């Protein structure tokens, strides 16, 4: 028979470490239905029949936070065979508060006092025997970090579960409360099993909305009960909920006096000393900046980039040199060949002429030729070669055949052990079995390309997750919230939102994933929705392209994009927190600052792996499916009026192109109602840099710079790429919220671009009356939303009496 044991305890009590010790690698990580709270289950290492559920870390069983609701619903509805309550021995008093509530559930329970090694080191003593007697359940001493007492605890928990000995709470409240509780039990709860009555009675006394809703008590009983509660409140001069909480802490204070002896000592603990520096008035912000720079630098510019380049260009590209041996020689050989056969005087002269004629991109090509590196040239030529040819400075006659000869004669395998990339291998394999062309392209471009798109993000993300796991586990993350709270809470965000946004400036996908460190669900959702407004690395090419094509390379374009991103976050934060979607739970910022401690290597790695694999699984499916869809949309189309597949499909004739021309009128008020712009925007969903690929520089010549800027802003703010959408879906854990996020982003982008274009027209003297009226209306609405007074939700902060 299977046995279910629930792990319950405060946050930071070492629950996760214990869970890892008990279950080893037999874990399943998921989400609790409907909320963004993580659910972990695993089987006991020594007995596979025992399922252990790791409940979220909670302080109480109140109905106010999603974590607490999830935990108590599980305990009441699923009724596990036993609760293993973990108590942080260094913080006995507050930890026992949850224990008193768990005891009332009537589920067999044992307590494990964790961090007993630290308690002893501090010279304190806990009398677990006395504690056990007073609590009415077994109490054992463990150290999850050192691994002591784990096996005994596990055995005891299983034994308790098997015995089915119901927990009987030993504490009682003061006379009038007990009187009211007895009345409640008698009036309504006598049909329930005896051991469950206590918990329900206390909850009804507290007027717990969620329990009342569930029980559906008849009206006359309710008013009868209400009288009892009101009498009690009058006598104690406090509201029912506070009476109960107070009584619990009074009982705990008694327990502590009996069972806990603190060695009196002056001086500060190590944690205090660290905190004196880290949250110091003057040093806190500089230290924070340094930590952020280190995290950003290592995960984006050094280690992270190295790994990502290898995944994208090596594993899912042409291939790579094993351990990088021979790469330098290979490049040298290419450069030498290029200097002789590609960078000829004729090519140089043509490009120089193009530069003189101010052809866009010519300067980049010339720089690359002067630099002498073929790789740089290849990139510049790939981007701007066609524009050069179109303006009458064609160099492809020399360059293309020469490159072909070079690829034939210089083989990377001659310079070291060359490992071909997956697409190359698969393509060769498919060629050998004479696969049909469209199927081959589907597999190589659609599926493998899609898998590559998913995995391409993973290495950088894993590096980042190591940092996040470390910062969280050592206790610094809580200090980040403490230090940054003042700035961010005005926009409905948490102090911890800074990190996702910083990461988001590199790539929105890990940025969204980084929001997991925010405990409050409302802040987390808000962060997820706004993080992708920050221009990520892939949006840089769009900015560069527009700057080059329409603004003569103006320097201020990129900073203005960041400014718009930050402004979008602020404006959205202020507007959204007033909407119905976010009006839900008020968010008290009452947060524990846990003691600093060095996390174990295993825990950090496990946390990194859990997040990484959940991205691959959940977000990966969405990314893969949409890549295949976009591949099909751009490879199937009408060639000379006949529908079919073609590797040479012109984008304008493909299915996507047709969709683009069908919807492009939508963008007319924004100034770019052309099919190309619409298709480019759709392709931006695959990856933002694809916008550049669709939109050759020449397409901009017809555009005014105002329309170009409007196009840029729309693409910066609208729905992010599929990878980021996948990450949003993963973190929101709800289709409704994902659609809300994407819908909001698109509408917001539309509104901002509309205002930019229409007000821009006004200043340049080309007023479009209808458009202007529309833009003014949008502007007025946003100003109204910003200025509207904000009230915390009334529904939850005002207690109703039980009268119906």
């Amino acid at each position: 028979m299977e046995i279910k044991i629930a792990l319950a305890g405060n946050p930071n009590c070492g629950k996760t470490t214990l869970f890892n010790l008990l279950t080893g690698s037999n874990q399943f990580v998921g989400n609790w239905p409907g909320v963004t709270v993580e659910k972990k289950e695993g089987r006991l290492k020594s007995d596979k029949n025992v399922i252990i559920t790791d409940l979220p870390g909670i302080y109480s069983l109140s109905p106010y936070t999603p974590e607490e609701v999830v935990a108590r619903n599980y305990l009441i509805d699923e009724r596990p065979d036993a609760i293993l309550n973990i108590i942080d021995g260094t913080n006995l008093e507050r930890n026992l508060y949850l224990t008193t509530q768990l005891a009332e559930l009537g589920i067999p329970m044992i307590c494990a006092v964790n961090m007993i090694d630290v308690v002893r080191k501090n010279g304190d003593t806990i009398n677990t025997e006395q504690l056990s007697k007073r609590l009415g359940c077994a109490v054992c001493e463990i150290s999850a970090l050192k691994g002591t007492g784990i096996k005994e605890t596990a055995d005891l928990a299983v034994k308790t579960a098997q015995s089915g000995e119901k927990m009987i709470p030993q504490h009682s409240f003061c006379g009038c409360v007990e009187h009211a509780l007895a009345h409640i039990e008698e009036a309504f709860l006598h049909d329930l099993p005896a051991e469950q009555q206590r918990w329900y009675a206390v909850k009804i006394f507290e007027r717990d909305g969620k329990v009342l809703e569930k029980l559906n008590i008849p009206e006359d009983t309710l008013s009868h009960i209400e009288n009892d509660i009101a009498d009690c409140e009058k006598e104690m001069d406090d509201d029912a909920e506070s009476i109960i909480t107070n009584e619990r802490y009074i009982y705990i204070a008694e327990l502590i006096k009996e069972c806990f002896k603190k060695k009196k000592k002056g001086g500060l603990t190590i944690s205090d000393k660290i905190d004196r520096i880290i949250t110091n008035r003057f040093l806190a912000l500089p230290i924070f900046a340094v930590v952020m720079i280190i995290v950003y630098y290592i995960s984006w510019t050094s280690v992270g980039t190295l790994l990502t380049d290898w995944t994208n260009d090596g594993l899912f590209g042409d291939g790579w040199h094993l351990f990088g041996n021979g790469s330098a020689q290979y490049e040298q050989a290419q450069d030498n060949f290029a200097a002789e056969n590609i960078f000829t005087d004729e090519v140089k002269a043509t490009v120089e002429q193009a530069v003189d004629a101010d052809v866009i991109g010519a300067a980049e090509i010339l720089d690359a030729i002067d630099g002498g590196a073929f790789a740089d040239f290849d990139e510049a030529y790939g981007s701007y070669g066609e524009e050069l040819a179109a303006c009458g400075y064609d160099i492809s006659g020399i360059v293309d055949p020469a490159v072909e000869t070079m690829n034939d004669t210089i083989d990377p395998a001659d310079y070291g052990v060359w490992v071909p990339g997956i697409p190359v291998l698969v393509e060769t394999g498919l060629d050998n079995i004479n696969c049909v062309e469209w199927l081959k392209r589907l597999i190589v471009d659609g599926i493998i390309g899609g898998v590559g798109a998913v995995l391409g993000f993973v290495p950088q993300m894993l590096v980042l997750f190591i940092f996040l796991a470390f910062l969280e586990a050592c206790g610094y993350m809580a200090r980040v919230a403490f230090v940054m709270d003042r700035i961010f809470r005005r926009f409905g965000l948490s102090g911890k939102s800074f990190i996702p946004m910083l990461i988001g400036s590199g790539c929105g996908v890990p940025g969204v994933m980084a929001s997991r460190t925010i405990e409050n669900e409302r802040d987390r959702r808000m962060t997820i929705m706004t993080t992708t407004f920050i221009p990520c690395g892939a949006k840089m090419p769009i900015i560069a392209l527009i700057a080059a094509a329409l603004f003569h390379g103006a320097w201020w374009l990129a900073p203005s994009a960041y400014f718009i991103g930050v402004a979008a976050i602020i404006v959205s934060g202020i507007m959204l927190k007033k909407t119905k979607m976010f009006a839900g739970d008020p968010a008290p910022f009452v947060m524990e600052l846990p003691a600093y401690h060095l996390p174990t290597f295993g825990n950090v790695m496990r946390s990194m792996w859990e997040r990484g694999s959940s991205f691959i699984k959940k977000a990966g499916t969405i990314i893969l499916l949409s890549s295949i869809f976009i591949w099909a949309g751009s490879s199937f189309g009408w060639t000379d009026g006949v529908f079919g597949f073609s590797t040479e499909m012109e984008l304008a004739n493909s299915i996507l192109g047709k969709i683009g021309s069908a919807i492009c009128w939508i963008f007319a008020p924004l100034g770019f109602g052309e099919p190309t712009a619409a298709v480019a925007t759709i392709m931006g969903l695959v990856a933002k840099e694809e916008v550049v690929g669709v939109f050759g520089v020449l397409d901009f010549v017809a555009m005014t710079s105002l329309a170009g800027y409007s196009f840029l802003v729309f693409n910066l703010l609208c729905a992010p790429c599929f990878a980021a959408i996948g990450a949003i879906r993963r973190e929101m854990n709800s289709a409704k919220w994902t659609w809300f996020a994407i819908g909001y982003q698109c509408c917001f982008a539309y509104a901002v671009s509309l205002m930019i274009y229409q007000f821009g027209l006004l200043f340049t003297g080309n007023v479009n009356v209808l458009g202007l009226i529309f833009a003014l209306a949008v502007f007025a609405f946003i100003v109204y939303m910003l200025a509207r007074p904000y009230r915390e939700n009334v529904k939850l902060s005002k207690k109703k009496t039980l009268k119906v």
Partner: protein
Amino acid sequence: MATLRDAKIGETVTVKRLNGEGAVKRRLMDMGLTKGVDVTVRKVAPLGDPIEVTVRGYELSLRKADAEKIDV
């Protein structure tokens, strides 16, 4: 009536009463800020808010707006 907000850094005060209702009050009480408990104000965040206090042997941070609801 003095509130926790007015307490100076390093000062230890005793909680007399919690004002307000609902989720915020419950949360403050869940974290151990109940009638009669001693609270020591440790520091103020670099930007002036929130504050850090020691209560029941551990460190807790709360916003000044919430500290204002606690009479000491």
